[in-house]
């Protein structure tokens, strides 16, 4: 029975996880976690790992040249760089507020890119 050792990244505790799978990679169990989220992370990480991407996009009409953004939820790990390509091309106009949708569906993930900071129109 293959066992995969992971460090949980769901919270800052960083619990050491052991994920047991069968020969086909099907998860049989997760140990070492101290909460439910740890188990979820262990299961997902060995089958379809995901990450939240945070970055900045260009903004016009604000005091700063860029504004902070994030994927609203986590996206498949293998889409991170495709996601960055779209972030690099995006451009918004001030004002922008926390939670405003910047891109409705980033890199075909179905997840929106949202603003995580406020930028008012500069005088």
């Amino acid at each position, binding site marked *: 029975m293959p066992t995969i050792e*992971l*460090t*949980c*990244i*769901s*919270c*800052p505790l*960083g*619990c*050491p996880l052991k994920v047991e799978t069968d020969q086909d990679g099907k998860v049989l169990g997760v140990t070492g976690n*101290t909460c439910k989220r740890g188990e979820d992370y262990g299961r997902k990480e060995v089958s379809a790992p995901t*990450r*939240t*991407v*945070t*970055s*900045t996009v*260009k903004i016009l009409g604000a005091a*700063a*040249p*860029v504004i*902070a953004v*994030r994927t609203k939820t986590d996206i498949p*790990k293998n889409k*991170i*760089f495709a996601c*960055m390509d779209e972030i690099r091309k995006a451009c918004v106009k001030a004002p922008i507020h*926390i939670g405003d949708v910047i891109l409705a569906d980033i890199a075909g993930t179905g997840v929106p890119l949202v603003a*995580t*900071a*406020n930028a008012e129109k500069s005088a």
Partner: protein
Amino acid sequence: MTYDVIIIGGGPAGLAAAVSARENGAQDILILEREKELGGILNQCIHNGFGLHTFQEELTGPEYAARFIDQVRERNIPYLLSTTVIGLTQSEEGVQVTAVSRENGLMVYSAKAAVLAMGCRERPRGALNIPGTRPAGIFSAGTAQRLVNLEGYLPGREVVILGSGDIGLIMARRMTLEGAKVKCVAEIQPFSGGLKRNIVQCLDDYGIPLKLSHTVVDIRGKERVEGVTIAQVDEHFKPIPGTEEDYACDTLLLSVGLIPENELSREIGVELSPVTNGPKVNESLETNIPGVFACGNVLHVHDLVDYVSEEAAQAGKNAAKYSANAPARGEEIPVETDGAVRYTVPSRICPQRMEEDLVLRFRVGKNMRNAYVCVAVDGKQVLRRKRPVMAPGEMEQVKLKKEDLQGAKSIRVCTEEA
């Protein structure tokens, strides 16, 4: 006028202290912030991972800050931006704060109580005495973070990072996402100073090697960094000859520690701890100067902002109480440390004045597995808690009970190996 509470710093600590001071009855509060916006360093920490404890959801730095800024605004707590405090002294009313700004010029403010919430700064290259040339391209990780996240500029394309503190790890990922090549992260200690999750999601995810027990022994390049040499170190942190490796790079980022910013504390006569470089405080987070409280990274460097907010709320509450009715100081017993415990905050406790529960925060000096944290009062153990993992990069805490401390002459916090 005399303010009830003046708060120096409008970052996470100052904001939480202000909200809590108001909740606990302080009417006239003033926050003095040197930046153009409230929020402090969180504004440039655009990555997620903040707020799980406080809000049960994972926020980015600016989002976390915004929650507290909203609370300050809802309560109409006044604040002054772009205002730098240049002097802090004791006065008949309590404390006198001298500040300068473009709008108000040089102003003197009086307050019954003050909360120190100035945060910390990064250790520079000089503090490490790294040999080599002094070209452009050497940045502290936080400076690079500001340039990338707020100013929209890339400081380098080929990067080596010295130090595996959280900012260094976060910047390894950030620079990678922006198209730079991060060649390695070198850490002089045999363990990382950052959170484990950051090693996984910032280094491992992108195949960036973490070289423990390694340091930079030479920097090359006249105008711009052209390369660095990294070598392994022995147990005394001395480079081992023959282990040198050259890395071609145009940028060296330093994430080699944070130092609490205590110039003002020193000026007013606050006693500092040589371990934390922050004020020594009692159970009320009050310094040796009556009415002067401290919280957040100016007190000791935290790993999570959630704990900063928690601690700051306590300091704000105590400052509010003090401003209403300065309580007499009872006898304070020092908290002794042993085992791997490097320090504790608070470092003195007055059992009469403490609340029912008191959170004692500390850090350990080495990695430990399945060890115990023990607290003894007058030689008698009152608490023994198992910790699966303890690491120097992470803050620990235990809760002390008032009933356990009554009549105590000594308190001792230690770790016991498994």
